[in-house]
């Protein structure tokens, strides 16, 4: 079974402001997008486990116009503060690669 990271055209993370991380998973075709959404693989439980967050801190939005699923969760350390590891939040999606 192929992972989302292989199926998706875009699999990225980024800051949405200094206190929030957003992950966008975007597909090339409507079929792939519909399959991904129907499969339920992208869910709050998996995301909250991987990032060690309470489930209610995770938001998942489905955006058909761009064949995209958006994941949102708060940062534990704000961008660029002492002990932060990713100022732009650009490399946080890797944590999910093997689990979606």
């Amino acid at each position: 079974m192929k992972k989302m990271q292989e199926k998706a055209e875009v699999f990225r993370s980024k800051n949405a402001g200094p206190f929030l991380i957003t992950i966008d998973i975007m597909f090339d075709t409507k079929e792939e997008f519909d399959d991904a959404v129907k499969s339920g693989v992208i869910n709050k439980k998996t995301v909250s486990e991987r990032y060690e967050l309470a489930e209610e801190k995770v938001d998942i939005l489905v955006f058909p116009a761009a064949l995209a699923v958006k994941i949102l969760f708060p940062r534990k350390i704000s961008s660029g503060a002492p002990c932060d590891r990713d100022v732009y939040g650009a490399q946080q999606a890797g944590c999910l690669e093997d689990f979606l």
Partner: protein
Amino acid sequence: MKEREEIRILSLNGLLGYGFPAESLKEGMKRSPHFIGVDAGSSDPGPYYLGSGKSLTKKLQVKRDLSLAIEASLAAGIPLVIGSAGTSGGEPHLRFVEEIIKDISKEKSVSFKLALIHAGIEKKAVKKALKEKRIKPLGETVPQLTADIVDKTVRIVGQMGVDPFIKAFRGNPDIILAGRACDTAVFAAYPIMKGYDPGLSYHLAKILECGALAGIPASASDCMCGSIGRDYFEVEPANHSRRCTKISVAAHSLYEQASPFGFYEPEGYVDLSGCDFQQESGRRVRVTGSRFKPCHGLQTIKLEGVVKRGYHTISMGGIRSRDVIENLDNMEKYVSEKTREMLPAVIVEEGYMLNFRFYGRDGVLGSIEPLREKPLHEVGILIEAIARTQEKADTVCALARSLALHFGFEGRKSTAGNIAFPFSPSDFPGGAIYEFCVYHLMETEDAGSFFPVEFKEV
């Protein structure tokens, strides 16, 4: 006539200083834009720039972009609009870009009318708003703001909306140079001033502020053309080797945003849920249905501010010996303990931080790294010391670095040194380190009064 009903806008690139092909600017100018706009700021590079007063993009980068843009805008007799000057849009950032503009004016022997819009917010005003409970955090993890934290803040800026830009446009300047501004305000102010639909204006602005990022291939270092009519807007990259597609334009509303269905501006909410995207030609997309819902009651200003957390020094190197790689956790523990033991007492009493990052193992994700136990053949080590002064940070880093190099663990075979340092010196003072402490909305009856417009002849 369709031509006359439209307002055309040229966006220089995603961030002033990021560069763009000169050919793209020429191509964009052929469409007779009503103005050239460029966003020069972002909070994305972290708190350092607002704290230090410095710009992420360097003087010569910014000068290159501005020289070409000023030349084009003066030749066409249209305004050039720059928002969030110098990355963070505070007073030192505004001066940084103003000086570059003055240099260009001297070198090219041209003079023009400059409108400066200030965005620094006085601490007094923030504390007053705090007392009157007109301040709220933007997100649940944003720390609570107190008068004490406001006092400790290095600098506070507010993101201006479209009104200060409209005021500046009315003075007919050649260049508008604004401090911290909503990315959209740079591009939306003009069409809104001319009576175009605010929903479409803001949505178009949201796409234009990133340069050609909504194009395929995407780039923040290229120009984007936009036009707005009565009930639609269109976008198309200036560069013929890029194109906009329905999906690339729709997808742009995901980028760095909490929601693709809409976004908040100081003046209200822009609802994108009813948008329709149509491919007009091979490279151009038409958008309809972006709706604006004005806020009722008080206007809001988004505030940004940072506190200084000390100074830091880093040392980095590589580890290639199996025995050392097997003892990374032991190394971290040993070095942390011994550093504390051997530092001058004053540094320990004042407080310091010592952070290790092991790249190849869990350098990016830290403790949540799922592949942390995977066998490694090489690891990058980054040692970071944070202390009250640069000298003290240098001291902590130097001590920790030598302890790590010579850490004698059980079973050690690479007994001459544990780390390959690529450089001499091996340690780099990194200057001050900051943290965002203000990321709040301030309610006000008169948002415009916080962003004074100043006209100057250059």
